[in-house]
């Protein structure tokens, strides 16, 4: 049991932090980038690729770095620290993760290297209007047509759906939910992109007999989707930790400098106590998120660990996000000032793949099955593991 980063992981964190702090040295830069399509900075995306981060979790034989969940967590937290709008989790962890898990070797060879180089931005087109946070598809149907497949239906909101070069699409097939690849320039594909409240992008993606390639060997991929969603939920938890960390730091700084009634705000215990409670929320959430990544690394029950991380970071994110604005006062609600953007991003993270209530409900369904929870034991740590 060890909660500390090794020296390579610490180096990775410093390198990513350096890159992102240069890219987003102030909140105005992020605001400008977010104001223009595609909602992130293509140059920063290239720099992330040069550092190897866009291929971080992929096998080396496919042009990746062969790194594990801890490294992904480190990058996600740094993204959150400056709320960089680059779609690292959406493209690399989630869409890329599905490709790495399900695709044929040939497909991996074509796609993973291109993703790692920054040449191809994939996204996972999965959300549908009228349902939420489920691993199965219902609004898009796949039909076999000769050697290939066509898709029909609508996905929305699809993160960066208008910018994406390739879409991994979940669709109804006989016996469950299949996964398909659709090229951005495919016939019968209509993409209508828009800005989201947190400054990133989403799209309505319409398939009308759109040609698609089966990802991997086909069949029902619900389990693979659930696994990828769980891994992305853990990564989002780390992005949230980074965002909360900065929101609290900015708030504490503000309390030390802003004067009212002739004194700085940190003279008011009503305010400092609330900041202390924010710290408590943050540290409890941080421990849980780090643990979930260790469970993933150890090959334990990722779905359950992800629910635990999501529940804790969701509750913490809402607490810290709302209090960060309140402790600032009016300036916290303005777009000119940074802190509100953190709250907005935390709110988006909370709803993309499942919020705290969603995770709590899932954990509640199994609460009767266990007497106690041992985070270092089964089902989280496979037995016989080496220390």
């Amino acid at each position, binding site marked *: *049991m060890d909660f500390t980063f090794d020296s390579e992981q610490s180096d990775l964190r410093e390198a990513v932090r350096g890159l992102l702090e240069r890219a987003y040295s102030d909140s105005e830069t992020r605001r400008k980038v977010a104001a223009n399509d595609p909602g992130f900075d293509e140059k920063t995306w290239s720099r992330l690729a040069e550092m190897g981060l866009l291929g971080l979790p992929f096998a080396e034989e496919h042009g990746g770095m062969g790194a594990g969940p801890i490294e992904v967590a480190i990058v996600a937290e740094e993204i959150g620290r400056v709320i960089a709008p680059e779609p690292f989790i959406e493209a690399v962890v989630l869409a890329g993760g599905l490709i790495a898990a399900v695709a044929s070797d040939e497909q991996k060879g074509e796609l993973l290297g291109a993703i790692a180089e920054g040449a191809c931005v994939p996204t996972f087109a999965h959300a549908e209007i009228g349902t939420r946070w489920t691993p199965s598809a219902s609004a898009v149907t796949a039909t076999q047509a000769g050697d290939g497949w066509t898709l029909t239906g609508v996905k929305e909101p699809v993160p960066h759906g208008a910018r994406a070069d390739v879409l991994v699409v979940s669709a109804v097939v006989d016996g469950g939910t299949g996964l398909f690849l659709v090229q951005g320039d495919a016939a019968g594909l209509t993409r209508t992109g828009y800005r989201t409240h947190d400054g990133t992008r989403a799209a309505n993606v319409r398939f009308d007999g759109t040609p698609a390639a089966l990802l991997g060997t086909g069949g029902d991929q619900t389990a693979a989707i659930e696994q990828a969603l769980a891994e992305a939920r853990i990564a989002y938890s780390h992005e949230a930790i980074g965002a909360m960390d900065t929101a609290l730091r900015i708030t504490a700084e503000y309390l030390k400098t802003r004067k009212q009634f002739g004194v700085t705000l940190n003279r008011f215990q009503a305010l400092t106590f609330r900041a202390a409670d924010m*710290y408590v929320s943050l540290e*409890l959430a941080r*421990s849980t998120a780090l*643990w979930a990544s260790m469970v993933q690394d150890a090959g334990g029950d990722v779905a359950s660990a992800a629910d635990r991380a999501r529940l804790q970071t969701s509750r913490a994110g809402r607490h810290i996000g709302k209090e960060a604005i309140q402790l600032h006062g009016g300036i916290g609600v303005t777009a000119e000032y940074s802190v509100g953007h953190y709250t907005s991003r935390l709110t988006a993270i909370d709803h993309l793949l499942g919020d705290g209530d969603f995770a*709590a409900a899932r954990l509640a369904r199994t609460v009767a099955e266990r*007497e106690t929870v041992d985070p*270092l034991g089964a089902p989280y740590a496979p037995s016989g593991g080496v220390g």
Partner: protein
Amino acid sequence: MRLQLSPELEAFREEMRTFFTTQVPQEIRDKVAGHGHVSKEEYVETQRVLNAAGLAVPHWPVEWGGRDWTPLQRHIWREEMQLANVPEPLAFNASMIGPVIAAFGNQEQKERFLAKTANLDIWWCQGFSEPDAGSDLASLRTTAVRDGDDWIVNGQKTWTTLGQHADWIFCLCRTDPTAEKKQRGISLLVFPMDTPGVTLRPIELIDGGFEVNEVFFEDVRVPAENLIGEENQGWTMAKFLLGNERVGIARIGSTKRMLAQAKEHAREITVDGRPLLDDPFMAARIAELENELVALELTALRVVANSADGKPHPASSVLKLKGSELQQAATELLVDIAGPLSVASFALEGSDVPDWARVATPHYLNYRKVSIYGGSNEVQRTIIAGTILGL
């Protein structure tokens, strides 16, 4: 980063688990599990069983019975003890005065007190709080005035937990009323509770129990050799002692036990023919608490792993704050599961209300104390805001 315990620590955990569940008498552990009244004799018996196996004071210096364990080993020791419903070694002895004497006492005092303190041959009580010095401990007014080879102690202490069982008291006294800072004029004296001039008045608590007391001192004559550390150094020792008090105060294993009991009882109570545990709202409430407890346990593991230098990690305030809140939430949950049965607190023989439901409310009411003692949660927020956030 690594999830699993090392094979050595796994073995250590197993060793602790086996010891606690086989060597400490079952009837004592059942009493702790049922939140019943643990007698003085049962505390003493348990601590002697632990001490004989070197498990009563592992955090002390090796010379005085310590084990030179890592913070993580100590954490496992404590958690397994709580999970097994073992009454922990008396805090006043094991966590408070023992470490203080070992760190600040002279050789004669160490030889005189430490072995007996570890074995609970001496039962200590804490003379810190006073009617006008609670969280603001440094305002204490009990005085000790030098008279030849003795100190003469006058004043009053309060909230003296289990003072009715105590053989000796360690007592903060004002020895220099003229000191520039009130913290600088305080000394630590120890003396027997049967010294002439010491009287004790029990305070009944809202649960109907007697665990705290007022202690009055009227011209109590204490030999000068009973001063621990140097004159007017008492505040340093008080801070050292309170820092130790915070370690392990999260009581995660104990709350885990309560949540397991809550599930068990929520299975026994049926609502419209279905177990209460199947009610989605109840299940979600337990799941939320359970998750917060996981988060706290993981935070405790992070803290112990990073406090190898022996100083409490600043985040230990998080453990006290959240640990007390979760203990209270678990006791509240048990009352709510007991529902109408929870009013039968003092039912006698002839009542059919199960024991767990009888003790639920008194336990809940009694546990309001945990966010007050050991530095109230407001003190912990002050520490977090000040030392961590720089506010």
